[in-house]
């Protein structure tokens, strides 16, 4: 009995001795919703958007902003991030962070400055969304208010997710994708760009273009059309988004105003196969896609079998054109954002051993053959074209 009691006391006290290790009360913390990395001269600049807790009682007249932006320069990003404590009485909670913005300046300089911070820091989530602030600094981006969202960092995350399903231009890039692509030979990372659009006094955020990297730094960007093409070529199945084709009825004289036909992409899958013939490298790209008929600009009946066939052919052409634009741009920038090197290294590992040393140059002369198979499945509730009563 005595011995048992002593053992119990020792066991219980060992619980207490450790003493609430790592405890962090909520009211000693402040949430970081997004953070950004930048450089300014010889200094690294770290900025973060903090979410301020709403006051308990909705006091009249307190219409202050719910977010707060802190910016600190430092020799290293981790140091800069901790210098925040010099001005902030609370401990930032990094684990809630959803958004990271890298400035164009830093990206053009060297992403090597920041990747170790991203990869090593145990507080940062691996699945936060990455953006590149084009022509501005992350701090400026975070300063723009995006009603009805309280925090522009969260707004950016929602925007990039929603646009992929709805319009289908950019692919969201998470930190882990970015780090993986940076660390892998034969594939280069991309990051969607965010810009500040000014219309008069008003400033707003807009997603525009995709930054392309090569050899640790940004070399250029894809525009909207090229970004679409890039999305078609992504190795996962993609779904959602709209695209416009020209009506196949033939009266081209009326222009796109009369001739636009909108199709909705349900799903699309790309298969890329590399073929090496002597010195020639060729990529066979096969796209299988399905979509719905969504909108037409003039009430010609497009529902006949033949017309649908024609629509599909026109859609194939449009998709192929977007993809070709993307490939051209990537080859121009000599950046293998499409992962073709990785593809070759999987299918022809021996040849890749010789190719990889001179890959960016070789990538620029890779030929490609694109075949697209788009099928129209449904046309929603209206089966025939809208008929005017005349």
């Amino acid at each position, binding site marked *: 009995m005595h011995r048992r009691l002593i053992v119990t006391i020792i066991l219980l006290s060992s619980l207490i001795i450790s003493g609430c290790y790592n405890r962090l009360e909520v009211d000693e913390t402040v949430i970081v919703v997004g953070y950004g990395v930048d450089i300014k001269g010889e200094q690294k600049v770290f900025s973060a958007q903090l*979410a301020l807790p709403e006051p308990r009682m909705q006091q009249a007249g307190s219409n202050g902003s719910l977010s707060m932006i802190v910016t600190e320069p430092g020799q290293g990003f981790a140091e800069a991030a901790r210098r925040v404590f010099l001005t902030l009485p609370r401990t930032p909670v990094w684990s809630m962070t959803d958004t990271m913005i890298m400035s164009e300046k830093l990206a053009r300089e060297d992403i090597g400055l920041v990747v170790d911070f991203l990869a090593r820091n145990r507080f940062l989530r691996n699945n936060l969304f990455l953006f590149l602030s084009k022509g501005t600094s992350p701090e400026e981006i975070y300063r723009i208010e995006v009603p009805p969202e309280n925090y522009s960092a969260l707004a950016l995350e929602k925007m990039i997710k929603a646009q992929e399903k709805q319009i289908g231009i950019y692919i969201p890039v998470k930190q882990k994708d970015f780090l993986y692509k940076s660390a892998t030979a034969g594939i280069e990372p991309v990051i969607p760009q965010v810009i500040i659009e000014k219309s008069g006094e008003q400033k707003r955020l807009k997603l525009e273009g995709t930054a392309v990297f090569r050899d640790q730094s940004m070399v250029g960007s894809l525009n909207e059309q090229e970004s679409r093409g890039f999305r078609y070529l992504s190795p996962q199945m993609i779904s959602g988004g709209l695209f416009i084709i020209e009506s196949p009825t033939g009266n081209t004289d009326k222009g796109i105003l009369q001739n636009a036909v909108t199709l909705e992409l349900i799903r699309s899958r790309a298969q890329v196969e590399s073929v090496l013939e002597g010195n020639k490298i060729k990529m066979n790209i096969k796209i299988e896609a399905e979509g719905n008929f969504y909108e037409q600009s003039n009430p010609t009946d497009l529902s006949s079998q033949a017309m649908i066939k024609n629509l599909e052919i026109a859609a194939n052409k449009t998709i192929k054109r977007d993809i070709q634009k993307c490939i051209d741009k990537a080859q121009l920038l000599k950046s293998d954002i499409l992962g073709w090197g990785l593809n070759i290294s999987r299918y022809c590992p021996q040849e890749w051993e010789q190719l990889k040393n001179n890959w960016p140059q070789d990538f620029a002369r890779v030929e490609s053959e694109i075949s697209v198979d788009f099928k129209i499945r449904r046309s929603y509730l209206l089966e025939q074209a809208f008929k005017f009563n005349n």
Partner: protein
Amino acid sequence: MRYLNKGKADTKPQLPNRVSAALSVNIQENIEQLRALLNACSDVVIREFTFGRQQETRCVLLYFDGLVDRTEIEENLLKPMLLEINMLEKESHPLEQKALLQQIQEHILSLAEVKPVSTLEEICHHICSGDTVLLVDGNQKGLAAGTRSWHTRAIQTPENESTIQGPKEGFNETLRLNTALLRRRLKSTQLKIESLLIGRISQTDTAVCYLEDIAPAGLVDEVKDRLSGIDIDGVLDTGYLEEFLENTKWTIFSQVEYTEKPDRVCGHLLEGRVCIMVDGSPMALIVPTSFPQFLITGEDYYQRFVPASLFRIMRFIAFFIALLLPSLYVAIISYHQEVVPSSLYLTIASSREGVPFPAFVEALIMESVFELLREAGLRLPRAIGPAVSIVGALIIGDAAVKAGLVSTPMVVVVAFTGIASFISPAYNAGTIIRIARFGILFASGLLGFFGILISLLMMLIRMASLSSLGQPYLSPVAPFDRAQISDILLRRPWTMNTNRPYMDRMQNRSRQKKASNNNGG
């Protein structure tokens, strides 16, 4: 076993020696002795009268007022003795004093239950139980007539175990009535109701009910052994017996099950368990039981198996909510902020802004206040009960939040936990959850998720080491019984429920013919 050994020495209740003496032939002596025994018992009635016309014989009638049916004594005992004696005397042979008692029993008393008694001890026991004792001069024996009748609660719906579907009758405080409720449901001679007397002073009738050939004989013997080993002055509720039946006392886990519903008892009896009932208590005690059994209601078996299974799953979830929710909340907001979505964290953060206590202390205070309100609510007189619960729930809760003493999410967590803890149909299981919740809360306040894990493991190890009269406490989960698990986590359709749950040494496990014959295709 140690209870048995301790008890065996003197199992009989110890009354003063003079009581165990046999009756004397002289009625005057008997009366004097009885008067001495019943001295200062103001409720006793000692009625002396003479009997017979030719030879007058002194007789005495003893009973306790209030325990007997007086009209029955008057109509069927006193009246025949005083009036119909003539009929006896008309017979050819005259009455002999020696055979008088037998003749009275055979010819005069028009009561169903009459039996001879020969010692003062027996007499006392009978009159205390509401029987009437008749002593006749010249006889060393007396007659005890069953005239028990006292005011008792009507059969009501049990307040603590209400059901939507299924029988609504509940036990009351009279043992005979309770056993009758069982017999009415199981009309078979296989239903055995063995009687025991426990309690030196209380002399409480205790019934051990089981189904012969279904309940393992060893189990029944073990129960009877343990019960007869009890030497205590009084047994006022089946709860007294629980601790004598348990193998392990030093634990928060109750190893027996209580119910007030005869249908639930019958369900258990049919599964081979043993039920113990005590006169004066509406609670039937069922052994052996296992922990998962606490989350099962009798109603599950009256509903179709689909809703019953869903409710059962819900009950299991609610069990974990009641056990873990406050600790999880504390662990998350003071140690593991990363597991909540940022919008939720923001909401929590803004409501915790300005709360003076750390989350753990806040949780501890709120849980204690809830337990306090709950306990007070039970004890409060009916008339003030609702008023106090309104003050407790609305005013204290709301004012505390408004004053910034506690945060709103904590109130939600505590309220939800409180409601979830009522989902267990067994009250004693609810108390297990309530006690364990505080332990886990401490551990989570000290170590976060790690502490919760440690305390859950400790609980699990403790539970795995317990057994309820030979049945492992976690069965059929551990040791794992595949045939049985489907009737614990879900409710198996009756057509598939062909076997009784496994119990050690059970002879007859078949409940019905195989399902295929039963379905009719």
